[in-house]
């Protein structure tokens, strides 16, 4: 098992390297750089622009730039943001926490609700409650995130004015009491989390239901019943363990999307997270920031995959990695 993990980590590092080349290459493919925008600003002198360009080696060939970036990256120096004039690592760190809060809240809520709902739907298959749930989750899956977000914003923020329109903290956040701060955070998080949960919940619930149905058809479930076990034990001890296995991989991928999954949502709700940050970075060609965020996303995906495989091996005795 240990050797398996080490092997995977080595391969992962190679993949990260390859991804960085790919990403860097594509990024550089776009003509121009950050300082092009400054050209339009008449207050900025040409010499300043040229000096900055040379300072960041933007006049060297691409592979030279890449190697320079890489050599600093592996030493932990993620570079410097042109736009924000701060080290990339710091910027990412700040925004990262916000994105993490958002995604962790969403994932937790999703799983807490989806698993029981899926079990319920499977056990009550074809009854009216199952059909209703099925229709609702179908709609939930088809609902575009951005549409739902805009709709909720219009309803709760525009019309009813119950919830704030975006961002993370109100202007007077620092003057609030602890509970006031929590309430304020919750109010700001409500719409983004709701949107994320609706989409993920519907899909996960359907998968859970499908898995449960598959498992309940299996012979060993009949064997369990033939032993005289109560239906409750049959479902929760025998069926559930098997039905949840395939979901482990999904959990791994969800973990991976912790950093990057909500980018569009952040943009729409002006939520100060990583996605929003990087969106602006790409638009303004803020190179080091783009690469920093890009690598974070790729890293999380790799970790998520590895996590999913390891968890699966732990949970399912049939799988062994020797």
């Amino acid at each position, binding site marked *: 098992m240990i050797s398996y993990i080490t092997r995977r980590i080595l391969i992962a590092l190679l993949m990260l390297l390859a991804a960085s080349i790919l990403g860097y290459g594509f990024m550089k493919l776009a*003509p121009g750089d950050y300082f092009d925008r400054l050209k339009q600003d008449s207050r900025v002198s040409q010499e300043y622009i040229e000096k900055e360009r040379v300072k960041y080696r933007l006049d060297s060939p691409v592979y030279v730039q890449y190697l320079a970036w890489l050599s600093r990256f592996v030493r932990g120096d993620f570079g410097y943001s042109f736009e924000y004039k701060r080290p990339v690592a710091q910027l990412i760190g700040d925004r990262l926490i916000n994105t993490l809060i958002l995604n962790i809240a969403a994932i937790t809520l999703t799983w807490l609700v989806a698993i029981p709902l899926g079990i319920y739907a499977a056990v009550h298959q074809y009854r009216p409650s199952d059909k209703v749930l099925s229709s609702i989750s179908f709609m939930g899956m*088809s609902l575009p995130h951005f549409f739902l977000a805009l709709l909720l914003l219009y309803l709760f923020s*525009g019309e009813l004015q119950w919830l704030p329109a975006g961002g993370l903290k109100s202007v007077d956040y620092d003057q609030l009491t602890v509970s006031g701060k929590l309430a304020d955070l919750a109010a700001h998080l409500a719409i983004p989390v709701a949107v994320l949960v609706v989409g993920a919940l519907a899909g996960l619930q359907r998968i859970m239901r499908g898995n449960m149905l598959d498992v309940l058809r299996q012979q060993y479930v009949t064997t369990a019943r033939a032993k005289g076990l109560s239906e409750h034990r049959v479902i929760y001890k025998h069926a559930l363990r098997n039905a949840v296995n395939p979901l482990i991989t999904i959990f791994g991928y969800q973990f991976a999307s912790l950093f990057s999954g909500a980018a569009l949502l952040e943009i729409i709700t002006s939520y100060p997270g990583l996605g929003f940050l990087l969106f602006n970075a790409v638009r303004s060609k803020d190179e080091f920031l783009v690469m920093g965020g890009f690598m974070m996303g790729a890293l999380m995906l790799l970790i998520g995959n590895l996590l999913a495989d390891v968890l699966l091996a732990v949970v399912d005795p049939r799988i062994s990695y020797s």
Partner: protein
Amino acid sequence: MSQQAETVAAEPSNGQTESLSPLRLSLRALRRHRMAMHGFRILVVLYVFTIFADFFAPYHYDDQRRDHSYHPPLRPHFYDDEGNFSFRPFVYGSSYTFNEYYQRIYKQDPSKKYYLRFFARGHKYRLLGLIPTDVRLFGVDTPGRLYLLGADHVGRDVLSRLIYGSRVSMTVGLLGTSVSLIIGLLIGGISGYYGGTIDLLIQRLCELIMLIPGLYLLMILYSTLPPGLSSVQVYFGVVFILAFIGWAGLARVIRGMVLSIAKQDFVTAAVAAGLPSWRIIVRHVLPSTLSYAIVAASLSIPAYILGESALSLIGMGIQDPVPSWGNMLQKAVNISELAQHPWILWPGFFIFVAVMAFNFVGDGLRDAFDPGSVAGQQA
């Protein structure tokens, strides 16, 4: 089990079941899936709009009236103020004043009546790209304007732009999926069939592509498009960008299936018969994957529609003035604008409907082709 006609012999009580090919069985099962048929009908309607967009839309998509910025939806009337009934519905003209925030307040002007005409004359176009005409399904005489769903910030009719927008949103999915399906089938087929180093390399490549966070890659790829492209070129650019990411997932699925199919005896028989590899792949192995491939593809069309909409929404897709349901939502991101002019949210609803329709059909296809489900079995 369905019986062959011979063994049934002289048994009138037995139902005579014809033997049907698996394809016919699947189609039959599909037709019985009610939701899938609903979805299918919705799609047909949407595609009719797509093909005959010029005919159905009262106005051209860039027909601006700056003084009608954000005009609210106009309801056609049958009764006028004095209670006179008219068979032909009509709309009132409108006038506006500015309030203290310099926003327009629109009022209906009952003195000006504009009758709704069917098969009215409007902006010229080419039907199906060939026949020049200017007949549109309905419209009102100038200088009246018909805003059934309101107007956007430069006074363009939202309904017209919605109909024109279907041309982008509905075709992006089909085109992108076809491209990635072809690429995915070929690469997945090769990867699964040959195995070994080729397989390993291709797998790593797919993983690599799937490794990169989606939206970032899309944004980065978009920014590689040179500026100054025509709208058509931008459209194809967006399609290819989406397909660039999409094929990897499909290739993996195909590869998995090819791996299990390649172990089956009929493939060994083909090899033993001396058929060249490419022929085996294309004529024997891939057709077995086709049913799953179709299901996977139809379920991925919504992803393309959503992808294009998301890109256009943040300004990295189809550009104004060409409408796509995604870029029509750009102004809606501003909450105060949205709160005052909620009708600009309509494109989002259409995206929802289209995605749901595709999901229904894909679901139905999956049930119909899946040998494990009851719906897919006959007899």
